[in-house]
C-alpha cells in the first residue's frame, strides 16, 4: 500500500463496526486489503443515499457486515444496531446577550488561531460573520463564487461582507464544479457521497492555506436551527448536531492542509440558546425568525429578503463536463468488481438519459454510483484493489 495514502487516511475520525460481532475497528484497511471491497454493495449505497444522512442509523451495510461509525453515533451492542443520539437542549432564560456570550465562548476556544469563515453569501454564514464582526474578532473569508444569473444575490452579499474581513479569497466555482477532478480524490475506506464535491472543497482548503486560516467555520446546521419546527419539550428536539457536517471533507481535504473544519451551529451553548428562543415555533423555511433576530448584525438585504439560489445548475454543468471521467471510472469499477451496474450496457442506460432534464432522482443515482466508483479508484490508487 502506498505510504503517503496511509498517512492521510490514518487521521480519519470515522471508525467502523462489525455488525455481526459488535467489534469496533479504528480503521478497516486490513479488511479492505483482504478483499472485502469485492463484495461491496453499490445498490445499498444508492439506497442509503436516498434515505439521507438524517436516517444514517437505518443505513444498510455497503461493505458486508461493516458499518461506518461517524463521530457522534454509537453502536448499541444489545440491540446490535446503530443509534444516532438526539441533542437535548437545556431549558433556561435566553436573550440576545446570552446568544452573544455563547458565540463569544465558542470563538474563544480558537483564541490565538486564525479564524476563517466560508463566505457563501447566504444567511447562515452571514450570521457567523456578523457575530465575529460584532465581537471585534478578526477573521478571514473564503468562498466560492460564480457569475451565473441565479447567484446574483449571493454575489451581492459576498461583496457587502468582504470589507469586514482581514482578507478574502473568492474562488471561481466554474473551475471547480461538482464532479470535477474526480481522479484526484484521496483514497478513503468507505464510499462517501461528498467525494463528488472534492474539487471545490480542495480549492477552499488551499485558499485557507494561502490565508493562513487554521480554523474554518461553516454555516452547516443553520437550516436545522433556524428552519425546523421545534417542540416545547426539549426531549423531543429533532436536532442531530453530529450530522450538521460530514467528516469526509474535514478529515480528507482540510485536515491534511492544516485546516480544522468546524460547523459553528453545532456548538451546544449556541444550540441551547436558539432552542430556547425558538421553542414551540413552526417550520420556518425562509428563516424569517433568524433574519429578524439577528437584524442588527446582518446586511439589511438578508433581513428583508429570503432569496436563495439553487445549486442545481452547477451540478448539471459539472455532470456535463465530467461524463468522460465518469465513464472511465465506471469502466474501471466494472473491471474490478464485474458488478452489472457498472457494465457498459448499464452505463449507457444511466448516462444516456437527458441530463438537462431536472429529475433529481436520476441525479441521485448517478451521483451515488459515481461516488462508489471514486471509492474503488481510491482503493486502486492505494494499491488495495488490484
Amino acid at each position, binding site marked *: 500500500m502506498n505510504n503517503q495514502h496511509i498517512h492521510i487516511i490514518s487521521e480519519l475520525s470515522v471508525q467502523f463496526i462489525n455488525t455481526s460481532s459488535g467489534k469496533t475497528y479504528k480503521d478497516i484497511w486490513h479488511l479492505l486489503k483482504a478483499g472485502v471491497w469485492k463484495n461491496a454493495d453499490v445498490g445499498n449505497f444508492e439506497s442509503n443515499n436516498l434515505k439521507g444522512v438524517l436516517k444514517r442509523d437505518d443505513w444498510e451495510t455497503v461493505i458486508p457486515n461493516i458499518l461506518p461509525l461517524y463521530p457522534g453515533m454509537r453502536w448499541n451492542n444489545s440491540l446490535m444496531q446503530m443509534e444516532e443520539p438526539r441533542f437535548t437542549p437545556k431549558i433556561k432564560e435566553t436573550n440576545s446577550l446570552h446568544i452573544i456570550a455563547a458565540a463569544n465562548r465558542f470563538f474563544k476556544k480558537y483564541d490565538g488561531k486564525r479564524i476563517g469563515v466560508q463566505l457563501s453569501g447566504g444567511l447562515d454564514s452571514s450570521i457567523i460573520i456578523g457575530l465575529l464582526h460584532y465581537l471585534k474578532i478578526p477573521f478571514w473569508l473564503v468562498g466560492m463564487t460564480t457569475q*451565473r*444569473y*441565479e447567484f*446574483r*444575490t449571493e454575489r*451581492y452579499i459576498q461583496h457587502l461582507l468582504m470589507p469586514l474581513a482581514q482578507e478574502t479569497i473568492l474562488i471561481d466555482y466554474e473551475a471547480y464544479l461538482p464532479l470535477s477532478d474526480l481522479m484526484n480524490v484521496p483514497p478513503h475506506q468507505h464510499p462517501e457521497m461528498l467525494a463528488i464535491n472534492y474539487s471545490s472543497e480542495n480549492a477552499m482548503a488551499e485558499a485557507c492555506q494561502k490565508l493562513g486560516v487554521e480554523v474554518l467555520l461553516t454555516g452547516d446546521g443553520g437550516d436545522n436551527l433556524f428552519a425546523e419546527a421545534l417542540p416545547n419539550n426539549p426531549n423531543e428536539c429533532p436536532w442531530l448536531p453530529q450530522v450538521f457536517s460530514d467528516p469526509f471533507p474535514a478529515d480528507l481535504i482540510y485536515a491534511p492542509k492544516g485546516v480544522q473544519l468546524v460547523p459553528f451551529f453545532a456548538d451546544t451553548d449556541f444550540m441551547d440558546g436558539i432552542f430556547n428562543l425558538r421553542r414551540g415555533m413552526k417550520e420556518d423555511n*425562509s428563516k424569517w425568525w433568524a433574519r429578524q433576530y439577528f437584524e442588527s448584525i446582518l446586511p439589511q*438585504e438578508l433581513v*428583508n*429578503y*429570503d*432569496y*436563495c*439560489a*439553487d445549486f*442545481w*445548475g452547477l451540478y*448539471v*454543468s459539472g455532470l*456535463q463536463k465530467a461524463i468522460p471521467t465518469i465513464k472511465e471510472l465506471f469502466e474501471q469499477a466494472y473491471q474490478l468488481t464485474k458488478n452489472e451496474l457498472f457494465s457498459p450496457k448499464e452505463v449507457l442506460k444511466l448516462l444516456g438519459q437527458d441530463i*438537462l*432534464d*431536472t429529475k433529481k432522482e436520476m441525479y441521485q443515482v448517478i451521483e451515488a454510483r459515481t461516488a462508489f466508483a471514486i471509492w474503488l479508484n481510491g482503493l486502486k490508487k492505494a494499491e488495495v484493489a488490484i
Partner: protein
Amino acid sequence: MLSKFRTIPIYTIDEECFFEKITGVLLKQASNRSTENIAVYSSKLNHFLELNSHPYNLAIRKTFTIGKKRFESFIKIYAIILTRLFSINFYLGRLFSKISIRVFQSSEEAVLFYRNYIYPNKQNDLCLARAFFAAATSKSFKENGLIFIGVFLPSKSMHAWIIEDRAMADPQDSIWLNYQPVAAIHYE
C-alpha cells in the same frame, strides 16, 4: 389585450437560446455572437430587466389576503379554460388571455386567487397559466406589470412570473430567482 411579446435571447460562447412564441418551446442554435446581449429593448422592458437582475431593488412584499369577488364562479371558469388551453398549446393560451376581466386590484391578488382556487395541488406546474391569468385579471398590470418567462440554464427547466409595482407578484414563488428571462409580455 397583451400587446407586446418580446423574446430576450441569451447568448453563451457558442449558442443562442431563445423562446419560440408560437409553440412556447425553448430553442437553441449555434451562434458566434458575444455573450453580451446586443438587442435593444423598450424603456419599460429595460426597467423590468434591471429589477429582475437586482432583486434587492424590488419592493418588500406585504402580506396580502383576498376578499370575496363578484362573479367568482365566472372567474374560476375563465381560469380553468385558460389553464387547459395552455396545457394544449402556448399560443392558444396566449390568445385566450387577450380576453381580460380586470377584477383584481393587483396581480398579487390575482395570483393568490389562482393558487387558492384553481388546481391548488398542481400549482408547481401551472406557473405559465397563473402568470397570464394574473396579467389578464389585474387592474394594475397594464400600467405597472410585466410577465417574464425564464430558463434555469443549463437545464431545460422553465418558469413564468410577474413583476408589478416594483415587486414580485407571487408571494409563494421562491424559485423565480434561478430563472433568466428569455421572453417578456407587457403593455407599452
